[in-house]
């Protein structure tokens, strides 16, 4: 982004802790089996774009591409409503925010260095001093002492699953995602960066993101890539199909891959994602690779596929991302009808959940995650909230879908149980 770049030796990602007072925006993949550390951290924003003030997609493109340097941001679930031709009620939550920064930090390979990119030498020096500063130990994560309130209890959720199946039988949708919103009092002393880094150590996932937008802080621990565009090569990796990662693991993987229900669930979302990337991909370039691949995250086996393509001349990565909102793996199919039905079945708003976290590097380069396994701290209302959901198909068992939803919420629900165990 500028001539002012240098590297600073570090050990792992402990340097994130010294940045906490600066409230950095973070989009990182921690070191995991199969993937090395990568991503970026933005410090000291120099500009900001907010959805709704600058004309949506065109405004965001203008913001990201008219000046050099990467941008970090998020788009909420409801940012995609207008593109679907829907005017559903929107929550009192930002539809999207992107920022550019005075300093961008990027972990080097092996997490032994941090590369510093700065707008000027003074900022670079300031960042380097910070990184060389005394490491903070993790602040204790306070227990969630207040009861966790769910927007749907078991009975209500199972009733909604039955309603979703009725919509499927009537031909309104093939698949429908249903979610529950959980919320509790924000415990005194909860420090977002400490929670972020501790979750990253205990529950590594591919897409950790931390984004401050006062009074909200979004804390995302997603295993799912939404859209990546690298030098015009498009990749989306929808996840569908979940099974507890019990031993013997290989037998569970085989069982997941052999399940007709899970197979159908993934296949229809793969077709949906193919559809959603196609408007901005060259004809004949959209393909599917590694169908029904399996990985483990949060104690769950998850099945996914790689949908690939080549960006069409005249389209940018942001055109593709914007027109694919909201991510199809968390709506259902056909998407427009699914989103309408979800609005009628869920008694809550999804807010940041089921939107996406995004790192934009240029017109042909970005990466983004689906904002699942994502929590939000609301400082004004002193609320800690998170959502979890499940894909409903015609042969879904309401009891099992509820259990799957709770399993996906487990890493946040466990915060309230740690000390009682």
């Amino acid at each position, binding site marked *: 982004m500028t001539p002012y770049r240098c590297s600073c030796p570090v050990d792992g990602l402990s340097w994130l802790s010294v940045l906490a007072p600066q409230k950095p925006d973070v989009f990182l993949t921690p070191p995991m089996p199969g993937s090395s550390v990568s991503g970026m951290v933005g410090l000291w924003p120099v500009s900001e774009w907010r959805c709704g003030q600058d004309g949506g997609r065109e405004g965001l493109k203008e913001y990201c591409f008219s000046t050099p340097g990467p941008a970090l941001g998020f788009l909420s679930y409801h940012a995609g409503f207008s593109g679907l031709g829907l005017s559903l009620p929107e929550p009192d939550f930002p539809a999207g925010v992107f920022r550019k920064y005075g300093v961008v930090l990027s972990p080097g390979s092996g997490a032994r260095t941090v590369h510093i990119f700065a707008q000027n030498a003074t900022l670079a020096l300031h960042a380097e001093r910070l990184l060389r500063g005394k490491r903070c130990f993790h602040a204790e994560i306070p227990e969630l002492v207040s009861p966790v309130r769910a927007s749907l209890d078991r009975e209500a959720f199972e009733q909604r699953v039955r309603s979703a199946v009725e919509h499927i039988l*009537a*031909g309104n949708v093939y698949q429908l995602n249903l979610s529950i919103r959980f919320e509790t009092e924000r415990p005194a002393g909860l420090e977002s960066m400490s929670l972020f880094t501790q979750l990253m150590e205990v529950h590594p996932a591919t897409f950790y993101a931390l984004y401050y937008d006062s009074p909200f802080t979004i804390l995302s621990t997603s295993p799912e890539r939404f859209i990546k565009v690298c030098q015009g090569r498009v990749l989306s990796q929808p996840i569908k199909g979940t099974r507890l990662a019990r031993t013997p693991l290989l037998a569970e993987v085989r069982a997941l891959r052999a399940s007709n229900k899970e197979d*159908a669930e993934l296949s229809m979302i793969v*077709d949906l994602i193919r*559809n959603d990337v196609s408007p901005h991909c060259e004809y004949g370039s959209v393909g599917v690779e590694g169908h029904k691949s399996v990985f483990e995250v949060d104690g769950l086996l998850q099945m996914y596929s790689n949908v690939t393509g080549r960006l069409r001349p005249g389209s940018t990565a942001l055109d593709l991302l914007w027109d694919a909102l909201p991510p199809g793996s968390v709506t259902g199919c*056909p*998407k427009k009808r699914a989103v309408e039905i979800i609005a009628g079945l869920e008694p809550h708003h999804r807010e940041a959940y089921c939107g996406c976290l995004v790192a934009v590097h240029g017109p042909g380069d970005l990466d983004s995650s689906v904002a699942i396994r994502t929590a939000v701290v609301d400082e004004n209302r002193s609320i800690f909230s998170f959502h979890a959901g499940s894909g409903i198909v015609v042969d879904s068992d309401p009891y099992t879908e509820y259990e799957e939803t709770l399993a996906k919420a487990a890493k946040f629900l466990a915060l309230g149980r740690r000390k009682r165990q």
Partner: protein
Amino acid sequence: MRILMVDNKDSFTRNLEHLIVAASGSVPVIVPYATFFPEMVHGYDVTVLSPGPGHPDDYPGYKGLFGPGRPVLGICLGLQIINVHFGGAVDRLQGCIHGRISRFTLFGKEIEAARYHSLYLSQVAADLDVLAEFQGIPMAAKHKRLPVLGLQFHPESFLTPQGEGIIRDALQMLLSG
């Protein structure tokens, strides 16, 4: 070839667009169902009705589309719209099927076809000939006299490996009269 495709608010329409380009070499013009009117098809060689949610009764805008010299290809809901228009019935399919493959014969070839349908042609219109079926469920049908043809399955799915050839054969059948 000039192709008009009407998008019935579906999430597979752009897959169908890419497949039509591969099969015909022509880029279809896509119009949303909400803005479609039958006179729009003048100037096009064929009109494609995309898949979509709901029952054919939810789509009254196609009244007036079908007639001599107006080739129409319907996919999934598109076939069901054709069937209801010509007097057939569409109802819920016991054991509805989504995202799964069935094998049957179409245009003289054994094919693997992706199926996504909760509804089916419970009574085939008298003017339609069934071209393919799977376990008694119509999978393709063509009007006896008019250039109107429909497919119940999804040739545009990645689970239908012969999709390009199927679209090519279907267009050829429609345009050859």
